[in-house]
Protein backbone atom coordinates (compact mmCIF):
# COMPACT_ATOMS: atom_id res chain seq x y z
CA UNK A 1 0.00 0.00 0.00
CA UNK A 2 1.32 3.39 -0.88
CA UNK A 3 1.20 6.09 1.75
CA UNK A 4 1.66 9.80 1.44
CA UNK A 5 4.63 11.36 3.18
CA UNK A 6 6.07 14.83 3.39
CA UNK A 7 9.82 15.25 3.13
CA UNK A 8 11.78 18.26 4.30
CA UNK A 9 15.43 18.81 3.43
CA UNK A 10 17.89 20.68 5.62
CA UNK A 11 21.50 21.56 5.02
CA UNK A 12 22.70 21.86 8.59
CA UNK A 13 22.59 19.37 11.44
CA UNK A 14 21.90 22.02 14.09
CA UNK A 15 18.90 23.29 12.14
CA UNK A 16 17.76 19.71 11.71
CA UNK A 17 18.00 19.04 15.45
CA UNK A 18 15.89 22.10 16.25
CA UNK A 19 13.40 21.15 13.55
CA UNK A 20 13.08 17.63 14.94
CA UNK A 21 12.43 18.96 18.42
CA UNK A 22 9.87 21.43 17.14
CA UNK A 23 8.00 18.91 14.99
CA UNK A 24 7.86 16.52 17.92
CA UNK A 25 6.63 19.28 20.19
CA UNK A 26 3.72 19.75 17.75
CA UNK A 27 2.93 16.03 18.10
CA UNK A 28 3.68 14.90 14.58
CA UNK A 29 5.14 11.47 14.11
CA UNK A 30 8.54 11.54 12.39
CA UNK A 31 8.87 8.37 10.38
CA UNK A 32 12.55 8.63 9.54
CA UNK A 33 15.46 11.01 9.26
CA UNK A 34 18.18 10.43 6.65
CA UNK A 35 21.57 11.95 7.37
CA UNK A 36 24.96 11.81 5.65
CA UNK A 37 26.67 11.16 9.00
CA UNK A 38 25.57 10.19 12.51
CA UNK A 39 24.12 13.24 14.27
CA UNK A 40 24.90 13.24 17.98
CA UNK A 41 21.76 13.20 20.11
CA UNK A 42 19.37 12.75 17.17
CA UNK A 43 18.07 9.43 18.50
CA UNK A 44 17.09 11.04 21.77
CA UNK A 45 15.51 14.05 20.03
CA UNK A 46 13.45 11.74 17.82
CA UNK A 47 12.36 9.76 20.87
CA UNK A 48 13.71 6.46 19.56
CA UNK A 49 13.85 3.64 22.08
CA UNK A 50 17.30 2.74 23.41
CA UNK A 51 19.21 0.20 21.38
CA UNK A 52 19.19 -3.36 22.68
CA UNK A 53 22.25 -4.37 20.71
CA UNK A 54 24.33 -4.36 23.91
CA UNK A 55 22.18 -7.17 25.30
CA UNK A 56 22.61 -9.24 22.16
CA UNK A 57 26.33 -8.56 22.31
CA UNK A 58 26.48 -9.92 25.86
CA UNK A 59 24.56 -13.04 24.86
CA UNK A 60 26.78 -13.62 21.83
CA UNK A 61 29.81 -13.21 24.08
CA UNK A 62 28.45 -15.88 26.42
CA UNK A 63 27.88 -18.13 23.44
CA UNK A 64 31.45 -17.60 22.24
CA UNK A 65 32.80 -18.36 25.71
CA UNK A 66 30.78 -21.57 25.84
CA UNK A 67 31.95 -22.64 22.41
CA UNK A 68 35.56 -22.05 23.45
CA UNK A 69 35.18 -24.07 26.65
CA UNK A 70 33.45 -26.98 24.95
CA UNK A 71 35.86 -26.95 22.03
CA UNK A 72 39.05 -26.85 24.11
CA UNK A 73 37.71 -29.47 26.45
CA UNK A 74 37.09 -31.79 23.56
CA UNK A 75 40.33 -31.11 21.69
CA UNK A 76 42.84 -30.93 24.52
CA UNK A 77 41.31 -33.01 27.28
CA UNK A 78 38.94 -35.65 25.92
CA UNK A 79 39.87 -36.46 22.36
CA UNK A 80 43.64 -36.34 22.71
CA UNK A 81 44.69 -35.63 26.32
CA UNK A 82 47.70 -33.36 26.39
CA UNK A 83 50.40 -32.57 28.91
CA UNK A 84 50.29 -28.78 29.01
CA UNK A 85 53.29 -26.94 30.41
CA UNK A 86 54.70 -30.01 32.12
CA UNK A 87 51.55 -30.31 34.25
CA UNK A 88 49.86 -33.53 33.17
CA UNK A 89 46.68 -33.15 35.18
CA UNK A 90 44.34 -33.91 32.25
CA UNK A 91 41.62 -31.87 33.89
CA UNK A 92 40.00 -28.93 32.18
CA UNK A 93 39.85 -26.86 35.33
CA UNK A 94 43.51 -27.23 36.19
CA UNK A 95 44.60 -26.48 32.64
CA UNK A 96 42.15 -23.62 32.33
CA UNK A 97 44.75 -20.80 32.44
CA UNK A 98 46.24 -22.12 29.21
CA UNK A 99 42.86 -21.78 27.52
CA UNK A 100 42.09 -18.28 28.71
CA UNK A 101 43.47 -16.57 25.58
CA UNK A 102 41.27 -18.79 23.42
CA UNK A 103 38.25 -18.23 25.62
CA UNK A 104 38.84 -14.50 25.46
CA UNK A 105 39.35 -14.38 21.71
CA UNK A 106 36.30 -16.46 20.89
CA UNK A 107 34.18 -14.36 23.23
CA UNK A 108 35.25 -11.22 21.40
CA UNK A 109 34.99 -12.88 18.00
CA UNK A 110 31.44 -14.08 18.54
CA UNK A 111 30.29 -10.86 20.17
CA UNK A 112 31.74 -8.64 17.45
CA UNK A 113 30.75 -10.58 14.34
CA UNK A 114 27.30 -11.63 15.43
CA UNK A 115 26.60 -8.14 16.69
CA UNK A 116 27.48 -6.62 13.31
CA UNK A 117 25.33 -9.18 11.49
CA UNK A 118 22.47 -8.52 13.90
CA UNK A 119 22.83 -4.81 13.34
CA UNK A 120 22.62 -5.19 9.55
CA UNK A 121 19.61 -7.47 9.71
CA UNK A 122 17.81 -5.29 12.23
CA UNK A 123 18.48 -2.28 10.02
CA UNK A 124 17.06 -4.33 7.14
CA UNK A 125 20.27 -4.26 5.14
CA UNK A 126 21.41 -7.27 3.21
CA UNK A 127 23.26 -7.94 -0.05
CA UNK A 128 21.51 -6.68 -3.23
CA UNK A 129 19.11 -4.63 -1.17
CA UNK A 130 17.81 -1.56 -3.00
CA UNK A 131 18.78 1.65 -1.21
CA UNK A 132 15.97 3.16 0.83
CA UNK A 133 17.02 6.77 0.98
CA UNK A 134 14.55 8.89 -0.93
CA UNK A 135 17.00 11.55 -2.03
CA UNK A 136 20.59 11.06 -3.13
CA UNK A 137 21.63 14.31 -1.53
CA UNK A 138 21.29 12.70 1.90
CA UNK A 139 24.48 10.80 1.13
CA UNK A 140 26.32 14.03 0.53
CA UNK A 141 25.43 17.19 2.44
CA UNK A 142 21.68 17.24 3.05
CA UNK A 143 19.47 15.97 5.87
CA UNK A 144 15.99 14.69 5.17
CA UNK A 145 13.11 14.40 7.60
CA UNK A 146 10.12 12.28 6.62
CA UNK A 147 6.71 12.66 8.25
CA UNK A 148 3.56 10.68 7.52
CA UNK A 149 0.61 12.68 6.17
CA UNK A 150 -2.95 12.47 7.45
CA UNK A 151 -4.75 15.16 5.45
CA UNK A 152 -2.72 17.89 7.09
CA UNK A 153 -0.47 18.70 4.17
CA UNK A 154 -0.61 22.48 4.24
CA UNK A 155 -0.31 22.84 7.95
CA UNK A 156 2.75 20.56 8.03
CA UNK A 157 4.42 22.19 5.04
CA UNK A 158 4.08 25.56 6.71
CA UNK A 159 5.57 24.24 9.94
CA UNK A 160 8.49 22.67 8.09
CA UNK A 161 9.31 25.82 6.15
CA UNK A 162 9.27 27.65 9.46
CA UNK A 163 11.86 25.28 10.96
CA UNK A 164 14.36 26.29 8.27
CA UNK A 165 13.91 23.59 5.63
CA UNK A 166 15.52 24.33 2.27
CA UNK A 167 13.02 22.16 0.37
CA UNK A 168 9.68 20.55 1.19
CA UNK A 169 7.93 18.04 -1.02
CA UNK A 170 5.08 15.54 -0.81
CA UNK A 171 5.52 12.09 -2.31
CA UNK A 172 3.94 8.69 -2.40
CA UNK A 173 5.90 6.01 -0.65
CA UNK A 174 5.78 2.29 -1.30
CA UNK A 175 5.76 0.15 1.79
Amino acid at each position, binding site marked *: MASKVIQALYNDDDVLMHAVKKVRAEHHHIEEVYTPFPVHGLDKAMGLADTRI*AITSFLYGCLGLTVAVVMMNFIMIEDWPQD*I*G*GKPSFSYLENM*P*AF*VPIMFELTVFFAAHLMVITFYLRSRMWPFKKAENPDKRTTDDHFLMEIGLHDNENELAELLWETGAVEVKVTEKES
Partner: protein
Amino acid sequence: MYTFSNKLRLGSFIAMGLGFIFLVIGFMSAPSTVEEAKAMVAVHDDGHGGGHAEAATESHGDQGHGAEASHGEEHDSSHDEHLLSQLKNRPWSALYVAAFFFFMISLGVLAFYAIQRAAQAGWSPLLFRVMEGITAYLVPGGIIVFVILLLSAMHMNHLFVWMDSEVVAHDELLQGKAGYLNPTFFLIRAAIFLGGWIFYRQYSRKLSLAQDESDDNTNFVKNFRWSAGFLVFYLVTESMMSWDWIMSVDPHWFSTLFGWYVFASMFVSGITVIAMVTVYLKSKGYLEDVNNSHIHDLAKFMFGISIFWTYLWFAQFMLIWYANIPEEVTYYVARFQDYKLPFFGMLVLNFVFPLLVLMNSDYKRINWFVIMTGIVVLFGHYLDIFNMIMPATVGDQWFIGLPEIGGILFFGGLFVYWVFTALTKAPLQPKRNPFIEESRHFHY
Protein backbone atom coordinates in the same frame (compact mmCIF):
# COMPACT_ATOMS: atom_id res chain seq x y z
CA MET B 1 34.24 26.43 49.87
CA TYR B 2 33.93 23.03 51.44
CA THR B 3 33.78 22.67 55.19
CA PHE B 4 34.93 19.44 56.76
CA SER B 5 31.89 17.93 58.41
CA ASN B 6 32.38 17.20 62.10
CA LYS B 7 31.00 13.71 61.79
CA LEU B 8 33.54 12.73 59.16
CA ARG B 9 36.39 14.36 61.09
CA LEU B 10 35.39 12.53 64.25
CA GLY B 11 35.08 9.30 62.28
CA SER B 12 38.58 9.70 60.89
CA PHE B 13 40.00 10.37 64.36
CA ILE B 14 38.26 7.34 65.80
CA ALA B 15 39.58 5.19 62.96
CA MET B 16 43.09 6.51 63.52
CA GLY B 17 42.90 5.93 67.27
CA LEU B 18 41.49 2.43 66.99
CA GLY B 19 43.95 1.56 64.26
CA PHE B 20 46.82 2.84 66.35
CA ILE B 21 45.75 0.72 69.33
CA PHE B 22 45.37 -2.37 67.13
CA LEU B 23 48.79 -1.82 65.62
CA VAL B 24 50.38 -1.39 69.05
CA ILE B 25 48.73 -4.61 70.22
CA GLY B 26 50.02 -6.28 67.08
CA PHE B 27 53.57 -5.16 67.78
CA MET B 28 53.36 -6.04 71.47
CA SER B 29 52.08 -9.55 70.83
CA ALA B 30 54.78 -10.44 68.32
CA PRO B 31 57.07 -13.07 69.83
CA SER B 32 60.61 -12.16 70.79
CA THR B 33 62.04 -15.64 71.35
CA VAL B 34 61.93 -18.91 69.47
CA GLU B 35 60.02 -20.60 72.32
CA GLU B 36 57.29 -17.98 72.22
CA ALA B 37 57.00 -18.32 68.48
CA LYS B 38 56.66 -22.08 68.69
CA ALA B 39 54.05 -21.79 71.41
CA MET B 40 52.04 -19.34 69.29
CA VAL B 41 52.05 -21.60 66.28
CA ALA B 42 51.08 -24.62 68.40
CA VAL B 43 48.02 -22.74 69.58
CA HIS B 44 47.20 -21.49 66.11
CA ASP B 45 47.70 -24.74 64.32
CA ASP B 46 44.23 -26.05 65.10
CA GLY B 47 42.53 -23.22 63.32
CA HIS B 48 45.14 -23.01 60.61
CA GLY B 49 44.60 -26.42 59.12
CA GLY B 50 47.89 -27.85 60.41
CA GLY B 51 50.28 -28.87 57.68
CA HIS B 52 52.71 -26.17 58.68
CA ALA B 53 55.91 -28.06 58.18
CA GLU B 54 55.47 -29.04 54.55
CA ALA B 55 54.03 -25.70 53.53
CA ALA B 56 56.85 -23.81 55.18
CA THR B 57 59.54 -25.66 53.28
CA GLU B 58 57.87 -24.53 50.11
CA SER B 59 57.64 -20.90 51.09
CA HIS B 60 61.22 -20.93 52.24
CA GLY B 61 62.27 -21.32 48.66
CA ASP B 62 63.12 -17.70 48.21
CA GLN B 63 64.23 -16.16 51.42
CA GLY B 64 66.47 -18.25 53.56
CA HIS B 65 67.50 -20.31 50.59
CA GLY B 66 71.21 -19.72 50.68
CA ALA B 67 71.37 -19.82 54.44
CA GLU B 68 69.38 -23.02 54.57
CA ALA B 69 71.47 -24.97 52.10
CA SER B 70 74.61 -24.43 54.10
CA HIS B 71 72.89 -25.35 57.33
CA GLY B 72 71.65 -28.73 56.21
CA GLU B 73 71.71 -30.59 59.51
CA GLU B 74 70.64 -27.75 61.71
CA HIS B 75 67.52 -27.48 59.67
CA ASP B 76 65.20 -27.80 62.61
CA SER B 77 66.56 -24.94 64.62
CA SER B 78 66.95 -22.71 61.57
CA HIS B 79 63.35 -23.50 60.76
CA ASP B 80 62.25 -22.32 64.17
CA GLU B 81 64.20 -19.13 63.80
CA HIS B 82 62.65 -18.62 60.44
CA LEU B 83 59.25 -18.97 62.04
CA LEU B 84 60.21 -16.41 64.65
CA SER B 85 61.25 -13.91 62.01
CA GLN B 86 57.99 -14.47 60.13
CA LEU B 87 55.94 -13.80 63.24
CA LYS B 88 58.03 -10.76 64.06
CA ASN B 89 57.52 -9.51 60.53
CA ARG B 90 53.77 -9.75 60.68
CA PRO B 91 52.92 -6.41 62.34
CA TRP B 92 55.57 -4.68 60.24
CA SER B 93 54.15 -6.17 57.06
CA ALA B 94 50.64 -5.18 58.07
CA LEU B 95 51.86 -1.65 58.69
CA TYR B 96 53.77 -1.53 55.42
CA VAL B 97 50.96 -2.95 53.28
CA ALA B 98 48.41 -0.48 54.63
CA ALA B 99 50.81 2.48 54.44
CA PHE B 100 51.74 1.63 50.89
CA PHE B 101 48.14 1.00 49.86
CA PHE B 102 46.89 4.44 50.85
CA PHE B 103 50.01 6.11 49.53
CA MET B 104 49.49 4.28 46.25
CA ILE B 105 45.94 5.63 45.95
CA SER B 106 47.15 9.21 46.01
CA LEU B 107 49.97 8.39 43.61
CA GLY B 108 47.49 6.80 41.20
CA VAL B 109 45.31 9.88 41.40
CA LEU B 110 48.37 12.03 40.70
CA ALA B 111 49.05 10.05 37.53
CA PHE B 112 45.41 10.36 36.47
CA TYR B 113 45.50 14.08 37.16
CA ALA B 114 48.69 14.56 35.15
CA ILE B 115 47.16 12.65 32.24
CA GLN B 116 44.10 14.91 32.30
CA ARG B 117 46.39 17.95 32.31
CA ALA B 118 48.69 16.68 29.61
CA ALA B 119 45.80 15.60 27.39
CA GLN B 120 44.03 18.95 28.02
CA ALA B 121 40.90 16.94 28.66
CA GLY B 122 37.71 18.93 28.48
CA TRP B 123 35.47 16.79 30.65
CA SER B 124 37.46 16.65 33.87
CA PRO B 125 38.46 20.17 35.06
CA LEU B 126 35.45 20.21 37.40
CA LEU B 127 37.07 17.32 39.25
CA PHE B 128 40.57 18.81 39.46
CA ARG B 129 40.14 20.12 43.00
CA VAL B 130 38.95 16.71 44.16
CA MET B 131 42.02 15.11 42.60
CA GLU B 132 44.31 17.74 44.09
CA GLY B 133 42.75 17.08 47.48
CA ILE B 134 43.47 13.36 47.22
CA THR B 135 47.04 13.90 46.02
CA ALA B 136 47.65 16.06 49.11
CA TYR B 137 48.05 12.77 50.97
CA LEU B 138 51.14 12.08 48.87
CA VAL B 139 53.23 14.18 51.27
CA PRO B 140 52.46 12.48 54.62
CA GLY B 141 51.87 9.11 52.97
CA GLY B 142 55.16 9.24 51.11
CA ILE B 143 57.07 10.29 54.20
CA ILE B 144 55.57 7.45 56.23
CA VAL B 145 56.48 4.88 53.59
CA PHE B 146 59.97 6.32 53.44
CA VAL B 147 60.33 6.09 57.23
CA ILE B 148 59.26 2.44 57.14
CA LEU B 149 61.85 1.75 54.45
CA LEU B 150 64.44 3.61 56.50
CA LEU B 151 63.62 1.51 59.58
CA SER B 152 63.95 -1.62 57.44
CA ALA B 153 67.37 -0.47 56.30
CA MET B 154 68.25 0.07 59.97
CA HIS B 155 67.38 -3.60 60.62
CA MET B 156 64.35 -2.86 62.76
CA ASN B 157 62.54 -5.55 60.77
CA HIS B 158 63.16 -8.22 58.18
CA LEU B 159 60.83 -7.21 55.40
CA PHE B 160 63.67 -7.06 52.91
CA VAL B 161 65.94 -10.08 53.34
CA TRP B 162 68.55 -8.67 50.99
CA MET B 163 69.24 -5.94 53.54
CA ASP B 164 70.63 -8.59 55.88
CA SER B 165 74.36 -8.95 55.18
CA GLU B 166 74.29 -12.43 56.76
CA VAL B 167 71.85 -13.61 54.11
CA VAL B 168 73.73 -11.92 51.27
CA ALA B 169 77.00 -13.55 52.38
CA HIS B 170 75.48 -16.98 51.72
CA ASP B 171 73.63 -16.11 48.56
CA GLU B 172 75.38 -15.77 45.26
CA LEU B 173 72.37 -14.37 43.45
CA LEU B 174 71.99 -11.58 45.97
CA GLN B 175 75.69 -10.83 45.79
CA GLY B 176 75.26 -10.35 42.06
CA LYS B 177 72.44 -7.91 42.66
CA ALA B 178 74.17 -6.04 45.48
CA GLY B 179 75.25 -3.24 43.16
CA TYR B 180 71.61 -2.26 42.81
CA LEU B 181 70.01 -3.82 45.87
CA ASN B 182 71.93 -2.26 48.73
CA PRO B 183 70.36 -0.21 51.51
CA THR B 184 72.12 3.08 50.70
CA PHE B 185 71.29 3.17 47.00
CA PHE B 186 67.81 1.89 47.82
CA LEU B 187 67.12 4.83 50.10
CA ILE B 188 68.65 7.33 47.68
CA ARG B 189 66.35 6.05 44.94
CA ALA B 190 63.33 6.21 47.22
CA ALA B 191 64.20 9.81 48.09
CA ILE B 192 64.51 10.74 44.41
CA PHE B 193 61.19 9.11 43.49
CA LEU B 194 59.30 10.71 46.36
CA GLY B 195 61.01 14.05 45.88
CA GLY B 196 60.04 14.19 42.22
CA TRP B 197 56.43 13.16 42.79
CA ILE B 198 55.89 15.50 45.71
CA PHE B 199 57.53 18.38 43.84
CA TYR B 200 55.23 17.95 40.85
CA ARG B 201 52.19 17.65 43.07
CA GLN B 202 52.94 20.81 45.01
CA TYR B 203 53.99 22.84 41.99
CA SER B 204 51.02 21.80 39.87
CA ARG B 205 48.66 22.62 42.71
CA LYS B 206 50.27 26.04 43.03
CA LEU B 207 49.87 26.70 39.30
CA SER B 208 46.30 25.45 39.42
CA LEU B 209 45.41 27.90 42.20
CA ALA B 210 47.33 30.74 40.52
CA GLN B 211 45.35 30.15 37.32
CA ASP B 212 42.15 31.06 39.18
CA GLU B 213 43.48 34.50 40.05
CA SER B 214 45.35 35.38 36.87
CA ASP B 215 44.01 37.07 33.75
CA ASP B 216 45.75 34.98 31.12
CA ASN B 217 46.46 31.28 30.56
CA THR B 218 50.20 31.17 31.26
CA ASN B 219 49.76 29.14 34.44
CA PHE B 220 47.57 26.68 32.60
CA VAL B 221 50.12 26.25 29.82
CA LYS B 222 52.95 25.85 32.31
CA ASN B 223 50.94 23.22 34.15
CA PHE B 224 50.39 21.38 30.87
CA ARG B 225 54.15 21.27 30.20
CA TRP B 226 55.08 20.17 33.71
CA SER B 227 52.41 17.48 33.61
CA ALA B 228 53.72 16.05 30.37
CA GLY B 229 57.25 16.06 31.80
CA PHE B 230 56.05 14.50 35.03
CA LEU B 231 54.41 11.62 33.19
CA VAL B 232 57.74 10.65 31.64
CA PHE B 233 59.44 10.82 35.03
CA TYR B 234 56.58 8.95 36.65
CA LEU B 235 56.49 6.06 34.21
CA VAL B 236 60.15 5.31 34.81
CA THR B 237 60.20 5.91 38.56
CA GLU B 238 56.92 4.13 39.24
CA SER B 239 58.28 1.02 37.60
CA MET B 240 61.53 1.19 39.57
CA MET B 241 59.61 1.93 42.75
CA SER B 242 57.61 -1.25 42.29
CA TRP B 243 60.79 -3.30 41.88
CA ASP B 244 62.37 -1.67 44.90
CA TRP B 245 59.54 -1.47 47.36
CA ILE B 246 57.56 -4.57 46.43
CA MET B 247 59.32 -6.98 44.11
CA SER B 248 62.52 -6.94 46.17
CA VAL B 249 60.81 -8.62 49.12
CA ASP B 250 61.22 -11.74 46.94
CA PRO B 251 64.74 -10.91 45.84
CA HIS B 252 65.27 -14.03 43.73
CA TRP B 253 62.10 -13.60 41.78
CA PHE B 254 61.49 -11.10 39.05
CA SER B 255 58.83 -10.23 36.55
CA THR B 256 59.39 -7.79 33.72
CA LEU B 257 55.91 -6.35 33.70
CA PHE B 258 55.68 -5.94 37.45
CA GLY B 259 55.81 -2.14 37.20
CA TRP B 260 52.79 -2.06 34.93
CA TYR B 261 50.94 -4.46 37.11
CA VAL B 262 51.43 -2.31 40.21
CA PHE B 263 50.57 0.73 38.13
CA ALA B 264 47.25 -0.78 37.07
CA SER B 265 46.46 -1.51 40.70
CA MET B 266 47.20 2.03 41.86
CA PHE B 267 45.48 3.59 38.86
CA VAL B 268 42.19 1.78 39.38
CA SER B 269 42.28 2.38 43.14
CA GLY B 270 42.96 6.08 42.54
CA ILE B 271 40.16 6.50 40.03
CA THR B 272 37.79 4.64 42.34
CA VAL B 273 38.62 7.03 45.16
CA ILE B 274 38.08 10.05 42.88
CA ALA B 275 34.63 8.69 42.04
CA MET B 276 33.80 7.95 45.67
CA VAL B 277 34.92 11.36 46.96
CA THR B 278 33.04 13.09 44.14
CA VAL B 279 29.85 11.19 44.87
CA TYR B 280 30.23 11.94 48.58
CA LEU B 281 30.75 15.67 47.98
CA LYS B 282 27.80 15.77 45.60
CA SER B 283 25.60 14.07 48.16
CA LYS B 284 26.49 16.88 50.58
CA GLY B 285 25.40 19.48 48.05
CA TYR B 286 28.82 20.51 46.75
CA LEU B 287 30.05 20.27 43.15
CA GLU B 288 26.64 21.29 41.71
CA ASP B 289 27.96 21.27 38.16
CA VAL B 290 29.20 17.72 38.24
CA ASN B 291 26.54 15.67 36.49
CA ASN B 292 26.01 11.98 36.08
CA SER B 293 28.00 11.97 32.84
CA HIS B 294 31.11 12.73 34.88
CA ILE B 295 30.31 9.85 37.21
CA HIS B 296 29.64 7.68 34.19
CA ASP B 297 33.09 8.47 32.80
CA LEU B 298 34.82 7.70 36.09
CA ALA B 299 32.92 4.43 36.34
CA LYS B 300 33.95 3.58 32.78
CA PHE B 301 37.54 4.07 33.86
CA MET B 302 36.97 1.86 36.90
CA PHE B 303 35.56 -0.81 34.64
CA GLY B 304 38.23 -0.51 31.98
CA ILE B 305 41.22 -0.35 34.30
CA SER B 306 39.88 -3.28 36.33
CA ILE B 307 40.01 -5.33 33.16
CA PHE B 308 43.43 -3.89 32.32
CA TRP B 309 44.63 -4.97 35.75
CA THR B 310 43.31 -8.47 35.17
CA TYR B 311 44.99 -8.60 31.79
CA LEU B 312 48.36 -7.72 33.31
CA TRP B 313 47.86 -10.03 36.27
CA PHE B 314 47.06 -12.88 33.95
CA ALA B 315 49.83 -12.12 31.47
CA GLN B 316 52.33 -12.23 34.32
CA PHE B 317 50.85 -15.36 35.80
CA MET B 318 50.44 -17.41 32.64
CA LEU B 319 53.96 -16.89 31.31
CA ILE B 320 55.56 -17.77 34.62
CA TRP B 321 53.20 -20.66 35.32
CA TYR B 322 53.69 -22.40 31.98
CA ALA B 323 57.36 -21.54 31.55
CA ASN B 324 57.68 -23.44 34.83
CA ILE B 325 61.19 -22.24 35.74
CA PRO B 326 61.79 -23.28 39.36
CA GLU B 327 62.97 -19.95 40.79
CA GLU B 328 60.13 -18.10 39.10
CA VAL B 329 57.24 -20.46 39.59
CA THR B 330 57.78 -20.77 43.36
CA TYR B 331 56.26 -17.30 43.60
CA TYR B 332 52.91 -18.70 42.53
CA VAL B 333 53.32 -22.06 44.23
CA ALA B 334 53.64 -20.26 47.56
CA ARG B 335 50.50 -18.30 46.83
CA PHE B 336 48.49 -21.30 45.67
CA GLN B 337 49.41 -23.29 48.74
CA ASP B 338 49.17 -20.77 51.54
CA TYR B 339 47.14 -17.90 50.11
CA LYS B 340 44.23 -19.58 48.36
CA LEU B 341 41.52 -17.37 49.76
CA PRO B 342 43.13 -13.93 49.38
CA PHE B 343 44.68 -14.89 46.06
CA PHE B 344 41.57 -16.16 44.33
CA GLY B 345 39.27 -13.89 46.33
CA MET B 346 41.16 -10.94 44.93
CA LEU B 347 40.42 -12.10 41.38
CA VAL B 348 36.72 -12.23 42.13
CA LEU B 349 36.71 -8.81 43.79
CA ASN B 350 38.93 -7.08 41.23
CA PHE B 351 37.71 -8.70 38.05
CA VAL B 352 34.50 -10.70 38.16
CA PHE B 353 32.62 -8.27 40.38
CA PRO B 354 33.38 -4.99 38.54
CA LEU B 355 33.00 -6.79 35.21
CA LEU B 356 29.48 -7.93 35.93
CA VAL B 357 28.31 -4.96 37.99
CA LEU B 358 29.70 -2.12 35.89
CA MET B 359 29.06 -3.65 32.48
CA ASN B 360 25.64 -2.05 32.08
CA SER B 361 26.01 1.59 31.11
CA ASP B 362 22.99 2.69 33.18
CA TYR B 363 24.51 1.28 36.35
CA LYS B 364 27.58 3.43 35.88
CA ARG B 365 25.42 6.48 36.54
CA ILE B 366 23.84 5.24 39.75
CA ASN B 367 25.75 6.75 42.65
CA TRP B 368 25.26 4.02 45.21
CA PHE B 369 26.28 1.44 42.65
CA VAL B 370 29.53 3.26 42.05
CA ILE B 371 30.19 3.56 45.79
CA MET B 372 29.42 -0.10 46.45
CA THR B 373 31.62 -1.29 43.59
CA GLY B 374 34.28 1.16 44.76
CA ILE B 375 34.41 -0.35 48.24
CA VAL B 376 34.73 -3.85 46.79
CA VAL B 377 37.42 -2.78 44.32
CA LEU B 378 39.42 -0.99 47.01
CA PHE B 379 39.30 -4.00 49.29
CA GLY B 380 40.33 -6.18 46.36
CA HIS B 381 43.34 -4.03 45.65
CA TYR B 382 44.32 -3.97 49.30
CA LEU B 383 44.37 -7.76 49.03
CA ASP B 384 46.43 -7.44 45.88
CA ILE B 385 49.16 -5.56 47.77
CA PHE B 386 48.74 -8.00 50.65
CA ASN B 387 49.42 -10.88 48.25
CA MET B 388 52.47 -9.11 46.90
CA ILE B 389 54.15 -8.55 50.27
CA MET B 390 52.94 -11.13 52.77
CA PRO B 391 54.03 -14.45 51.20
CA ALA B 392 57.64 -13.28 51.26
CA THR B 393 57.62 -11.72 54.71
CA VAL B 394 55.30 -13.84 56.85
CA GLY B 395 54.87 -16.94 54.70
CA ASP B 396 52.06 -19.17 55.86
CA GLN B 397 51.69 -17.25 59.13
CA TRP B 398 49.37 -14.71 57.52
CA PHE B 399 46.05 -13.75 58.94
CA ILE B 400 43.84 -10.71 58.58
CA GLY B 401 43.68 -9.88 62.25
CA LEU B 402 44.31 -6.95 64.55
CA PRO B 403 47.49 -5.54 63.01
CA GLU B 404 46.13 -5.76 59.46
CA ILE B 405 42.78 -4.21 60.32
CA GLY B 406 44.57 -1.71 62.52
CA GLY B 407 46.78 -0.69 59.60
CA ILE B 408 43.78 -0.18 57.35
CA LEU B 409 41.92 1.83 60.01
CA PHE B 410 44.88 3.98 60.94
CA PHE B 411 45.98 4.89 57.43
CA GLY B 412 42.40 5.06 56.17
CA GLY B 413 41.58 7.54 58.92
CA LEU B 414 44.69 9.57 58.24
CA PHE B 415 43.91 9.51 54.51
CA VAL B 416 40.36 10.74 54.99
CA TYR B 417 41.45 13.39 57.47
CA TRP B 418 44.23 14.70 55.25
CA VAL B 419 42.28 14.61 51.98
CA PHE B 420 39.20 16.35 53.31
CA THR B 421 41.29 18.95 55.13
CA ALA B 422 43.03 19.69 51.82
CA LEU B 423 39.63 20.01 50.12
CA THR B 424 38.64 22.84 52.47
CA LYS B 425 41.68 24.89 51.44
CA ALA B 426 40.42 26.02 48.02
CA PRO B 427 37.07 26.47 46.22
CA LEU B 428 35.90 23.13 44.86
CA GLN B 429 35.33 24.54 41.39
CA PRO B 430 38.24 26.05 39.45
CA LYS B 431 37.27 29.53 38.24
CA ARG B 432 39.48 30.25 35.27
CA ASN B 433 40.40 26.91 33.81
CA PRO B 434 39.97 27.45 30.05
CA PHE B 435 38.05 24.18 29.77
CA ILE B 436 35.69 24.76 32.66
CA GLU B 437 32.73 25.60 30.38
CA GLU B 438 33.23 22.44 28.39
CA SER B 439 33.44 20.45 31.58
CA ARG B 440 30.27 22.04 32.90
CA HIS B 441 28.33 21.11 29.79
CA PHE B 442 29.86 17.69 29.56
CA HIS B 443 27.13 15.42 28.43
CA TYR B 444 27.07 12.03 27.03
